[in-house]
């Protein structure tokens, strides 16, 4: 893999940058691999990379319907955090956050990893109770979460001028998660792709899987694509939002629902907000990118849908809630918005698992799965390579649905 550094940049500048090598190859498609990973998004690429790096499995093809890095990782609000509720979740995300911190060096690709703290703006006591409950449990696993006063909250977020004593939902305090970070989503995809490619993994773009193929015994045998049949004894499905569409081609039904989520960015402005701001009671969160845009996400549209249209009323609710806390943003302009979809399990926890189809693995149900890319990739690679789950992901297999032993990460509310 060609080394990237200020020195290599200077060397290449001399010859007008004509000698940079391709970040990844476009090799011919073979008809057989050891492992096929469907989906060159964050989890697919990371899984392929760790298969090669940690387990020496390099006969890996990542097949992608569109362009690599074009899945949900392409339209992402890049929030990396570990403030979860349950014992099963916290150590997994703590690991992922730590891996993200070292990823720039690991992949020799600047992810622009910016550990900049997430601040929760709390406006109701039930929410405060729920977040405080996380605090002491997180401490057990080394994740930081501290309660701060409203005055301290306003000091850290000067643009937060709404939510005063007379507001509809006055701010009652905040929580600070110093481990939280943002980075550059495309760089994560490209960094993993480049490093995986350098270790022999093949990435095949514009290669759409039409169906999973099973052999006479029912085990997975390969995939049918628009470029022909590719065979492998192990196939990983990493296609957020489309998981059930792919697995049903093998007759496999999964406990997932697909729903829509939107995000949007403002025009770029000079630095205004340094932290990740999360306002759970109002239903939105944002951070300011290094380009200066406010990258804003809202609550999902709870209706099940494979469509990705932006629901105007859901979008307006998000904007309205934001303006109540940040009234100066009224004159800030919307520049671009996205609609996407994701699949979610009943307990809002991910599924990384073998399936009832021998040789078929899924990584799905990612609800904010961006933060989990490194740990998700590593532990899924472990499962695929060794046939047994990595300890960090053992709770997240499909087994938990046999006796409905959910890992509830939908908060402490009972009405879901």
């Amino acid at each position, binding site marked *: 893999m060609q080394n990237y550094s200020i020195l290599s940049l200077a060397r290449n500048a001399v010859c007008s940058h004509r000698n940079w090598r391709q970040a990844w190859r476009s090799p011919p498609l073979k008809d057989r691999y050891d492992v096929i990973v469907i989906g060159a998004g964050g989890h697919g690429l990371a899984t392929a990379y760790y298969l090669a790096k940690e387990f020496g499995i390099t006969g890996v093809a990542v097949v992608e319907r569109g362009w690599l890095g074009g899945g949900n990782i392409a339209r992402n609000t890049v929030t990396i955090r570990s403030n979860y509720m349950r014992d099963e979740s916290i150590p997994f995300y703590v690991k992922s956050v730590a891996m993200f911190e070292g990823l720039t060096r690991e992949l020799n690709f600047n992810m622009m990893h910016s550990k900049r703290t997430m601040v929760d703006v709390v406006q109701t006591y039930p929410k405060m109770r729920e977040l405080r*409950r996380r605090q002491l449990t997180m401490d057990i696993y080394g994740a930081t979460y501290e309660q701060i006063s409203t005055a301290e909250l306003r000091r850290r977020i000067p643009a937060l001028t709404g939510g005063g004593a007379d507001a509809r939902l006055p701010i009652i305090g905040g929580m600070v998660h110093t481990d939280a970070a943002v980075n550059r989503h495309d760089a994560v995809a490209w960094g993993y792709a480049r490093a995986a490619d350098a270790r022999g993994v093949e990435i095949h773009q514009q290669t759409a899987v039409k169906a999973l193929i099973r052999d006479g015994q029912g085990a997975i045998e390969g995939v049918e694509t628009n470029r022909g049949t590719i065979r492998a004894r192990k196939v990983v499905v990493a296609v957020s939002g489309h998981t059930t569409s792919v697995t049903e081609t093998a007759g496999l039904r999964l406990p997932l629902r697909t729903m829509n989520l939107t995000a949007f960015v403002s025009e770029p402005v000079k630095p205004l907000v340094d932290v990740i701001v999360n306002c759970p009671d109002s239903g939105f969160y944002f951070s300011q990118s290094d380009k200066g845009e406010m990258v804003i996400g809202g609550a999902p549209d709870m209706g099940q849908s494979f469509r990705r249209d932006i629901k105007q009323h859901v979008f307006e609710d998000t904007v309205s809630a934001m303006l109540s806390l940040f009234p100066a943003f009224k004159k800030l302009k919307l520049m671009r918005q996205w609609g996407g979809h994701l699949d979610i399990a009943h307990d809002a926890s991910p599924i990384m698992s073998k399936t009832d189809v021998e040789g078929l693995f899924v990584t799905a149900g990612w609800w904010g799965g961006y933060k989990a890319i490194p740990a998700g990739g590593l532990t899924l690679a472990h499962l695929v390579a060794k046939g047994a789950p990595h300890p960090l992901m053992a709770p997240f297999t499909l087994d938990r649905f046999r006796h409905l032993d959910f890992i509830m990460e939908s908060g402490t509310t009972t009405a879901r």
Partner: protein
Amino acid sequence: MAHDYRRPTGGRIDRNRKLRFHFNGKPYDGFEGDTLASALIANGVSVTARSFKYHRPRGIVGSGVEEPASLVELEGADASANNQITTVAIRSGLRAKSVNCWPSAEFDLGAINQLFARLIPAGFYYKTFKWPSWHLFEPIIRRAAGLAAAPSDPPAHGHFEARHAHADVLIAGAGPSGLMAALVAGRAGARVFLADEATEAGGSLLSRTLQIDGRPAMDWVADAVAELAMMDNVTHLQNATVWAYREHNLVVVNERKPDHGALLERSWRVRARKVICATGAIERAMVFANNDRPGVMLVSAVQTYVNRYAAIPGNRAVVFTNNDSAYAAAADMAAAGISIAAIVDCRDSVSARNLEQVAGIEVLAGHVVTAAKGRKRIRAVTVSRRDGGTAREIRCDLLAHSGGWNPAVHLFSQSRGTLRYDPTIACFVPDVPAQPTLSVGAATGRMTLADALRTGAEAGSEAASACGFDSGPCDVPESDDIAYTIEPLWRVDTPGPSGKAFLDIQNDVSVDDVLLALREGYSNVEHVKRYTTGGMGIDQGKTGNINIIGTIAQHHGVNLRDVGTTTFRSPYTPVSFGAIAGLREESVLFPYRHTPITAWNQANGAVMYEAGARWRRPGYFPREGESFQDTVNRECRAVRERVGVYDGSPLGTFELKGRDVARFLDFIYTNVMSNLKPGNGRYGLMLSDDGLILDDGVAFRIDEHRWVVSTSTGHADAIHQHMEKILQTLRPDWQVYVTTVTSQWNNATVCGPKAREVMTALGTSIDLSPESFPFMSFRDGTVAGLPARVMRVSFTGELSYEVNVAPRHMRMLWDRVMKAGASFDIEPVGSEASHVLRVEKGFLSLGHEVDGTVDPYDLGMSWVMSKTKADFLGKRSVDLRRQGSRRRRELVGLLPLDPNRAIPEGAPLTPGGRKEATEGVTTACVWSVVQNRWVGLGLIENGRTRHGETAYARLKDGAIPAIITAPVFHDLEGERLRS
């Protein structure tokens, strides 16, 4: 010198209304009707901006929303961050400054970046700034990026609003095709909604000198506008951008300054049966060395400035084109007094009709402009034959260039219609619509006025007829435009280091950057965009994206069709968040729900809490000199020792009627309800289909087929949906009608050992003796002279009467309760005291013990799980889960060994208090007035078998040991609540 840049007559400006404004601190004059761009051009200003990355001097490139180069920040009352200079109408007192330059656009220290240009090609930041950490570099990069500063305050005056509208035909764009469509559909009687982004109607006709029916085209526009104004069925908005096209033909329109009052912007949500995209076309740039220098402008922009604004962007011009549209513009430029040194056309032959228009001007066919010279203003361009040969330098201070036209397919594409690359006109055009959408005129790639009028008329007729309105045959006026041909030229290859050629002027993305991305394997159009940032600016690449696509296609040796476009996303042009929200903020977004007692509570010093479902309830009623704990203890003691009262109105209440209510309740509650006799009620639990507790509440049978069901306050809406979902999907044949009566009944709940005496003092027609009115029953009658339904339920563990009355009687009832209770020292009780009272009693609370993970067995409520019913919602799931091996966390009481030490709510319980996986959680901990110590509730693994053992609540700095007990600390047998 200013007069040199303004034509003596003409233009759509009001020369009687001179306006003084400030740009970059200097005063200038312009006229009503000018944009900031046209006024500055008329003042001879050429450097209006600095570029994003290299801080190169930049001027005005376009004349509308396509402007890529010049962004201004507005100051003062208009404060607004990044505005295209071409879209800001001037007014007296306007203050604007160029973004992202210091100290000024004219002299910008950031230009030092140009020295490092070779070190900072596309994506350089992915390769460096890694050591020792990105954190070292990030603050500098952040300050350098970001363009303008965000407004620091909301608008000082004025407001935003939103409106809904329905239309038969919505037309986006009031150019010739849009006006024609509106006339035809409007005359037919259809409800027409016509919206156009410009200050006045006319579209391209505002900039050109064409004729319609032998008259100036703008006369026809004026007649059309006047005719539309006469039609009651037509809504015609200018300054109104259709910026989003959603599912089900919902379009969103942003109307700016709709009146002269306080309304800043109005958002229209219009649901249309047919949408006509009459969005016109956008001229695209040519790509050659230094194509970003001030003085290099789009041909259409120059034409607009000379015709519409009577402003003269230069004295001596070269026109560079690959298509026919530049010739008429060149003629207009010449007519405006601009000396045209040459027309450089990359095509080998130019049609006679084109040449006729520019008689006397040198036309260099088969030539290209290879570079512009000059830094803050061009002074010459170099021209050579397209196939090479020696370059010739032509002196000029203006280069007007046209790379052809892109139909504005943004809305069509947002609606999920597919695009098709049309090689004959070298652009992407609408292909298959996904919704009831029609595209007309230049928005389809038909570039002549005749086509615009004809297709507009046809679409207007088709759309009207689809809505049931017959337009009959319609006359299409005559026009004099000439045909449009083009030969694509995605970029001019310039050998040697003659300067950067920009594909995206706003983000400083050059041809070299795109080629570098392609060399490095970023081969997809989305990769190129993301790696180089090309097309990611405020303008979203309206003039430049096509050249990036062309460059990619050339590199791969494929057709543009195979490269495709990046996704067109809303908004078409930036929209302020204020306009999107309209008036919806604060209590309009999250309405308050009040009870008739809210005012009383506030007057009596209650600290009000958000209580879920938008209700606000009193948290506690502090008195002078009391601590928080003092207050809560006082309120608790009142209930335990004497009597208290609270306003229970927010509790979710539903009336269920119908033949099948009883079996419906048996289905949604775990226990049996159907055997209740009228007049009686029962506490019950509802499960979700996942076998976890969803809600608790009480059901009372009023008569055979009529029930009242109460739910928790915060979940009332969710439970309503839950019931309706079951009735509409699982049991559609059952006759059950659910009506929300939460706000039809209010109640004062009188609770405590003296409750009966207070009720007696109030005066009631109901026999209050426990024998005739026992716990869990209700009676109708009068209380304090008011018609009431009294229910004996208890959430405090004490004798309680929930006195329900009509809302209009509630305040009267409350006052009478306080009066009758005075001699018993009655006190109002807030939710804090209620919390303590229910913990003492071990009553569960949603969000505390019921945290989304528990079933009834976990809470020791096996009695609530009916053994007799064949099925009920969640039964199978509970049974399935109980067959598993996972240890369950069970409800217990927790008595801290140190009775004066509280356990923080939510504190995890871990084995021995060690730093390891939790075995439970503290769900609540309160100071008990009956135990005179802290008492807690918790969920802990196998808790019911561990009474008497010690549990440890782990804190960051140690652990709190607590004895595990049964989860009840008061009146174990429940004698008091039944008394």
